[in-house]
């Protein structure tokens, strides 16, 4: 199994993330999962949108694409359909995936196209300095919610499942080994996989909401995560404020580019006249 250092473009480090940020932990978990699959590096494409998480691909020694805000999945769809043999991974954040890119998320899930999506959820727009995202908890403070956030947040995993994703999971930066395992399973699923990875942003979120330093925020993840099997035995009241982790949905079905290949094969057999 390759060392994850083999997947880094060491010449471009250090990374831009702030001290205490959870994104590096999550990225390492992703790289360990890739190492377990051990695909040829030339066949791996990592695509991202805009935001803190989306800077990750630049550090990786794969085919890497840092696109426009919210659109990573749409670019990735073009790559996967053009070259179905490639292993396409999308790295996105909560603002990128759930706000500006929400439409692409639900449609990529609906198609069940073979893309592994990992959403780094730090509950905030960190790159721009702490504005609320669709995953900022109600009541939290952000620079654009100085009096407390009014809007309920998305459950992105529920959204992905309802939209048709064939594999859905949630992990945290604290539970690094479990997260590695979840990403590995996501990579092994042939269709659309979605993994929400809870991250911590001590600089633009924790500080403003008096959640303590990075260690305190990681401790919060440890104390609030409940594995999906344990959660099944808890009442809705007991689950209030908890984060359900683990494999939330695993239901393989036909992958989109496979369906396209079948169509092309069917058409090549029926040579008939040119369609109108």
């Amino acid at each position, binding site marked *: 199994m390759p060392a994850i250092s083999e997947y880094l473009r060491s010449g471009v480090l250090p990374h831009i993330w702030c001290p205490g940020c959870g994104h590096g932990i999550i990225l390492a978990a992703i790289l360990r999962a890739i190492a377990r699959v051990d695909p040829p590096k030339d066949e791996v494409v990592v695509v991202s949108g805009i935001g803190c998480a989306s800077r990750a691909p630049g550090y990786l020694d794969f085919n890497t694409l840092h696109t426009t805000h919210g659109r990573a999945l749409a670019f990735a769809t073009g790559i996967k359909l053009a*070259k179905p043999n490639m292993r396409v991974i999308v790295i996105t954040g909560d603002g990128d995936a759930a706000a500006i890119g929400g*439409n692409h998320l639900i449609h990529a899930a609906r198609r069940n196209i073979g893309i592994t999506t990992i959403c780094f959820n730090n509950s905030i727009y960190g790159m721009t300095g702490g504005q609320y995202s669709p995953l900022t908890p109600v009541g939290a403070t952000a620079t654009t919610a100085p009096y407390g956030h009014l809007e309920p947040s998305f459950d992105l995993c529920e959204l992905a499942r309802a939209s048709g994703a064939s594999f859905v999971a949630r992990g945290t930066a604290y539970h690094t080994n479990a997260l590695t395992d979840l990403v590995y399973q996501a990579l092994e699923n042939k269709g659309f996989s979605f993994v929400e990875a809870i991250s911590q942003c001590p600089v633009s979120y924790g500080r403003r909401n008096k959640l303590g330093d990075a260690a305190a925020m990681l401790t919060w993840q440890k104390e609030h995560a409940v594995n999906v099997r344990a959660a099944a035995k808890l009442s809705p009241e007991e689950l209030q404020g908890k984060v359900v982790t683990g494999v939330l949905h695993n239901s393989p079905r036909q992958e989109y580019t496979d369906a396209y290949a079948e169509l092309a094969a069917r058409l090549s057999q029926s040579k008939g006249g040119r369609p109108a």
Partner: protein
Amino acid sequence: MSAARLIQGNEACAEGALAAGCRFFGGYPITPSTEIAEMMAARLPRVGGKFIQMEDEIASMAAIIGASLAGLKVMTATSGPGFSLKLENVGFAAMCEVPCVIANVQRAGPSTGGPTAVGQGDIMQARWGTHGDHPTVAFMPYSVRDSFDLTVTGFNCAEELRVPVVILLDEVIGHMRERVELPDPAMLSIIDRRRPDPSVTAPSDYLPYDHSAEPVPAMADFGSGYRYHVTGLHHNERGMPTGKAPEIDRLVRRLAAKMELAREKYLLYEEHETEDAEILVIAGGSPVRPAKRAVRMAREAGIRAGLFVPRTIWPFPGDRVRELARTARRIIVPELNLGQMVLEVERYAYSSGAPVKIESLGRVDGELFTPGQIYTAIQEALL
């Protein structure tokens, strides 16, 4: 030549794309461009290509850029509001030097405007619609056959220069049916993007944005062994983000220099009776046909009128306009907007120093010019 067919401009555009080697189309339904997507949906899966209807205009532009990075020749088609939506990613393609072709079948605007009404209000938008200094080449076909020819040329230009290319059709050109004989694809001159040669360039030495390869570096397909980074951020020759002023300056100026290369290699126009023309009509797209008729009527009446037809609209064939302005007393510019192309005509014609007068003849009611309308303008110019 294949047998004669009666087809629309939109179909000719799709035929041109297929003949040029387009093997990926990302689309979204919008009038009056939809027939291009419909035809690509029917044809591409039969020729080893890929068609996908994406969830919106933005996504279809994104998908074709992704497929182009994976090595395919790519296209999308749109109109009016859809073109506005695509423009952010058109800028991404310009910045990251990803070849792609966007057919914009112009309809009358602004906003939703007239979906089935003709307009040419996107001429300036095609050049300057996405933010920042950037290259965009645009062609403006004036007939069904020209839609085929300029789409082929557009693909060649996109591949050679690594730029987004806009085919600015309009509703009349897109929906008009004409008898055409399309050339045998095997007889066409087709250009593919330059790729790095593995026997010359090792992956570790590959510079995806090599400035010394002025102005167009070799482009590796994703998955071909050259692993590199593509970002819309200012980037250095390796493709990595940079904040260094000299690197940024070098990049943006090299990108802009592609417009000069387009001027050298892709500046297409036609002229009819311009040599002695004292009244010069300059028209592109669907106004060309009524303009041709008006010029013929003028000649029959003994008026020395001529017609200049830009087929490349960006870059604008301004040097030739400047020359013609030395003979012409008067230039009339009929266009289906309130004066966009005429701004370029003025810029070049007035710089000749000749005492030429320029008249903008705009029409924005969703209808095409009649020959009589342009002929009347020619007659009035003599008064």
